[in-house]
């Protein structure tokens, strides 16, 4: 095969770049692409910070009636929604007599969690995540954060919830 034949091939016209240059071009473009990705990640971090400071998450306001004490047996749970919001919560009557209220969305991928009676564990069936029913902390599985909780308090026999303002814990 002479050199002329090779020059007249159609693919040479479509891709008129020497072999040595071709390898350089692709790696150069890869390096530029990595920088673009780097810029994208930087913008993403900026958006997260901007959103957290400019549009903070709305807190539950005021006190909300859930139900009466005798409606939830020991080890039982009750799902509830606060008026004006679509976030599902569960009220848990722990075996030691305490009442706890948590968001019912798993912090991993927002599946519904449920309380396993008698174990003190809130379980997420999707990816086997476990939370401590006393504190909402993660015991195992993929969830990255503790379950958000509400403060439970009583007025005679009625159970009420309000936003919990416990100390910010460091991670």
């Amino acid at each position: 095969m002479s050199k002329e034949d090779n020059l007249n091939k159609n693919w040479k016209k479509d891709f008129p770049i020497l072999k040595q240059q071709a390898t350089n071009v692709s790696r150069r473009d890869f390096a530029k692409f990595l920088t673009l990705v780097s810029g994208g990640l930087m913008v993403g971090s900026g958006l997260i910070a901007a959103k957290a400071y400019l549009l903070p998450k709305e807190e539950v306001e005021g006190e909300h009636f859930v139900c009466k004490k005798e409606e939830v047996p020991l080890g039982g749970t009750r799902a509830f929604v606060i008026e004006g919001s679509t976030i599902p919560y569960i009220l848990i009557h722990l075996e030691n007599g305490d009442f706890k209220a948590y968001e019912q969305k798993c912090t991993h991928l927002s599946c519904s969690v449920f309380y396993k009676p008698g174990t003190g564990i809130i379980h997420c069936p999707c990816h086997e995540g476990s939370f401590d029913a006393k504190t909402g902390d993660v015991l195992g599985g993929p969830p990255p954060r503790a379950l958000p909780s509400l403060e439970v308090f009583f007025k005679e026999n009625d159970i009420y919830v309000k936003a919990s303002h416990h100390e910010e814990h460091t991670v």
Partner: protein
Amino acid sequence: MSTFRTSQNQANPNKLNNILSTLIFILILNVTIQIWLLYASLNNALDNNKEILIPAFIASLILFLIGFAWLYYLPTGNKRQK
């Protein structure tokens, strides 16, 4: 006048190869750290820990600027080499 660019263009292809590989290695390292920063700040934002978000953004910005400035050392290839 001899500049960084002319001497780089006259360098041995093996050397350019090394430069390019190192450059890409550092860029991948930067992007990995940035992914970690983004993941951490997202988790902390959802957990209402705001104090880490600005430092994470600044760190991410610095890493991006390092990567961007780093591109100056990208060999121009053999196009204009005689």
